């Protein structure tokens, strides 16, 4: 195999493939004019400071066009997607050493090529189009190979998406050309340390704004930066974009900016996706420098995430799936029929006022472990109080409601399902997000159609929602749209029972006490020992047990334990400890969750040598230990200096601790998952 970066060893294949490529391009581009126009619109007259999605390449493209009259038109056609990805990668490249560590060898190669092409664009790109094609085809080889495992198109580095993808659609074509293509995946001798210069500078560009944003403090609900569009440099600097568009390219939702102004950008995304779709394939992932573009196709809807947050692509994909679930929760799958009737159907009006719900879900992706753990969390409560709450809900559920949920914020107090029905943790997450992010539910009792995508994505259920106090919310779900008054009576009775049995007071106590603190772990060397203490009598101990560690930032629990998440496999529930020093800033907390996400992905996915049973990782921020058995998953963060043996020892103690408190921190028995 040729070593990457060795110009001389480039295969001959691509030379020959240029002609056929053009042929294919002609055939498969259903609407070149539109894409070309798009390209013009998007990139033709941009003169502002080059933001990350803007192609540095456009000058090159136009130069190519001038030089080679015959291919000029076609080159432009490709430009829509082409310039897009390339520009991005060049602007915010930063293919870091970390990437090198974790990626497959062929991706490394691409990284190296990237450098190569980056340098070329620096010096001014005067070569003919043929030369570029050659190089790109090379990468096609690399990516086509990478994608065979999961049929994901890993368009690496400098990859021009259109051309890159062009080779992919039919696996046969890339296999057929193996002799040539294979050259792309050389040995992994490519040392990524050679990637330097431009990239480092570009990295600062994005990181700077990112961290500033993170520190900004409490979140303002709803959509932000609505005034922006893709011509604003600030818009391009956001680290994580989410888009929803129709397969006709109509924008439906964008996390940042005004969807109407982003019509052109949406059309570009659509062009990329439909181009691949036209050849019977699906684009899953484009990797461009430190940006990942993850695509998800769900019926007539395209969901896209463009992220430079270094989250694993599986995690981003999961987030897109949740985002789609949230759409379904609001509209049911029946909305897809509208697209059948009219492919140009504009879905935006149907989502009127729901930006806040989608934005809040996206916010939860960074702050709510439930989004990647596929589990929900409970408000810690004395066993008796939770039993009383479950009892009250059970009575009502027997009389008609499908599900009764009592929640406090995003934590479950009690959850009861009627027989033979179960509530998927994601449904619960989406429902809870929908309700907590819509302020109107707090104003008065409401009766709203909702659809639980995992339960039945085709039909609405009706949710009776009433806040019993500031945080505590009762949700009764029924299939009968005429059930309001019945549920209203149920609510009145439940409320009486909850007040009589002091459940609401216990809930308030629990909120005041806060969640689990690692300092309270029995046998903690830091705080006064309180072995055998239970949560019930912990309230009184709190003062004593927390004073010492909180005065010493970074001390944490035993053996340098800083934080943990314990997920019970059978209950589909998790419990996370409260943030304690050093996780005092929002950015530190976010980093921790991101690290957990990564760890979770590596524990569950085959990629990177997984799935694993146990992992011990050290990075510059912390030591992370994860442990997965058939009963539970544990994710724990330690001081970077923590020793492996003592960390494992502490993990055992955490598990024991949680088991001792199981009845208080989890909802046992009553969970619908046990039916």
């Amino acid at each position: 195999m040729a070593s990457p970066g060795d110009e001389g060893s480039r295969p001959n294949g691509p030379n020959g493939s240029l002609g056929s490529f053009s042929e294919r391009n002609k055939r498969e581009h259903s609407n070149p004019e539109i894409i070309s126009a798009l390209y013009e619109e998007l990139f033709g007259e941009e003169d502002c400071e080059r933001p990350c999605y803007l192609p540095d390449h456009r000058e090159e493209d136009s130069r190519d066009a001038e030089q080679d009259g015959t291919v000029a038109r076609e080159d432009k056609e490709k430009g829509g997607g082409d310039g897009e990805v390339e520009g991005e990668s060049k602007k915010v490249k930063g293919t870091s050493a970390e990437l090198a560590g974790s990626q497959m060898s062929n991706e490394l190669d691409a990284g190296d090529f990237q450098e190569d092409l980056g340098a070329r664009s620096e010096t001014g790109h005067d070569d003919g189009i043929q030369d570029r094609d050659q190089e790109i085809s090379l990468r096609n080889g690399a990516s086509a190979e990478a994608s065979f495992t999961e049929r994901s198109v890993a368009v690496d580095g400098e990859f021009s998406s259109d051309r890159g993808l062009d080779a992919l659609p039919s696996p046969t074509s890339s296999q057929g050309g193996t002799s040539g293509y294979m050259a792309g995946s050389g040995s992994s001798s490519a040392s990524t340390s050679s990637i330097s210069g431009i990239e480092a500078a570009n990295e600062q560009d994005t990181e700077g704004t990112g961290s500033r944003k993170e520190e900004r403090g409490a979140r303002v609900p709803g959509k932000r930066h609505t005034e922006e569009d893709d011509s604003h440099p600030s818009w391009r600097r956001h680290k994580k974009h989410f888009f929803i568009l129709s397969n006709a390219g109509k924008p439906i939702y964008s996390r940042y900016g005004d969807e109407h102004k982003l019509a052109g950008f949406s059309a570009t995304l659509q062009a990329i996706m439909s181009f691949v779709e036209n050849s019977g394939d699906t684009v899953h992932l484009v990797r461009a420098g430190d940006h990942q573009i993850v695509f998800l196709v769900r019926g007539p809807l395209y969901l896209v995430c463009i992220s430079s947050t270094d989250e694993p692509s599986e995690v981003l994909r999961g987030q897109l799936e949740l985002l789609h679930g949230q759409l379904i929760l609001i509209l049911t799958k029946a909305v897809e029929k509208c697209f059948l009737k009219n492919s140009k159907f504009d879905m935006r009006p149907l989502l009127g006022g729901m930006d806040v719900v989608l934005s809040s879900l996206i916010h939860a992706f960074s702050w709510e472990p439930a989004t990647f753990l596929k589990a929900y969390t409970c408000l810690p409560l004395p066993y008796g109080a939770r039993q009383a709450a479950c009892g009250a809900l059970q009575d009502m559920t027997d009389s008609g409601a499908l599900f009764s949920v009592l929640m406090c914020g995003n934590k479950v107090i009690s959850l009861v399902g009627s027989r033979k029905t179960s509530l998927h943790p994601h449904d619960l997450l989406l429902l809870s997000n929908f309700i907590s992010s819509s302020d109107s539910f707090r104003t008065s009792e409401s009766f709203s159609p909702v659809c639980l995508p995992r339960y039945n994505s085709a039909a609405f259920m009706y949710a009776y929602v009433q806040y019993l106090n500031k945080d505590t919310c009762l949700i009764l779900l029924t299939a009968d749209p005429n059930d309001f008054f019945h549920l209203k009576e149920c609510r009145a009775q439940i409320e009486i029972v909850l007040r009589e049995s002091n459940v609401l007071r216990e809930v308030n106590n629990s909120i005041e006490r806060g969640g689990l603190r690692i300092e309270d772990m029995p046998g903690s060397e830091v705080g006064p020992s309180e072995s055998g203490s239970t949560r019930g009598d912990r309230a009184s101990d709190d003062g004593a047990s927390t004073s010492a560690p909180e005065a010493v930032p970074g001390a944490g629990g035993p053996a340098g334990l800083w934080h943990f998440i314990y997920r019970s496999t059978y209950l589909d529930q998790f419990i996370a400890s409260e943030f304690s020093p050093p996780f005092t800033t929002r950015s530190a907390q976010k980093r921790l969750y991101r690290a957990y996400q990564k760890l979770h992905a590596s524990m569950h996915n085959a990629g990177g040598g997984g799935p694993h049973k146990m992992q011990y990782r050290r990075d510059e921020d912390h030591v992370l230990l994860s442990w997965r058995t058939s009963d539970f998953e544990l994710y724990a963060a330690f001081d970077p200096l923590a020793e492996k043996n003592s960390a494992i020892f502490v993990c055992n103690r955490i598990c024991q601790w949680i088991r001792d408190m199981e009845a208080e921190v989890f909802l046992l028995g009553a969970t619908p998952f046990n039916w």
Partner: protein
Amino acid sequence: MGCASSSPAPRQGRLDGISHDATETFDSRNIRIKLVLLGDSGVGKSCIVLRFVRGQFDPSSKVTVGASFLSQTIALQDSTTVKFEIWDTAGQERYASLAPLYYRGAAAAVVVYDITSPDSFQRAQFWVKELQKHGSPGIVMALVGNKADLHESREVTSEDAQAYAESNGMFFIETSAKTADNVNQLFEEIAKRLPRGQPTQKP
């Protein structure tokens, strides 16, 4: 399970339920009626209701999801009381197909538009037609031009609205939930126009 998303089919035999005792009268002096608010999103339906029920005005816009249920009792001069059970529906397009769920069996309907938005006036006319077709017979309808405090940016004249209301047998009033102008008058007027309880039930 559930009802289809597009059109919640009226369930025969379950016409009680959400519309149960909608127009039930305790006696001729104490009436309980179901009232529904309809109109485009953002015209201020919830603000009118919250002003009427709680005397509050919250300028921060909270988008109603589905429908909110509130009730308020008023006493009229002739010493009768009327308890309004109010369905404050969401104005968003996606809920339009669910509106029958809320207006079925309603004795009164308040169709709201925003005097600064001709579109919302168009939308109001849509709701009026819908109610004429599918609403309860004899339903008392009010056409309400809200945000009267923004008269300097008025786009819909009172004359046009008045004329439309008259030609459709509705009464017309302009309100401001912000300044509380005419809000109570609106509900009092509806109460007055309600058909009084069945004479046979008189004690």
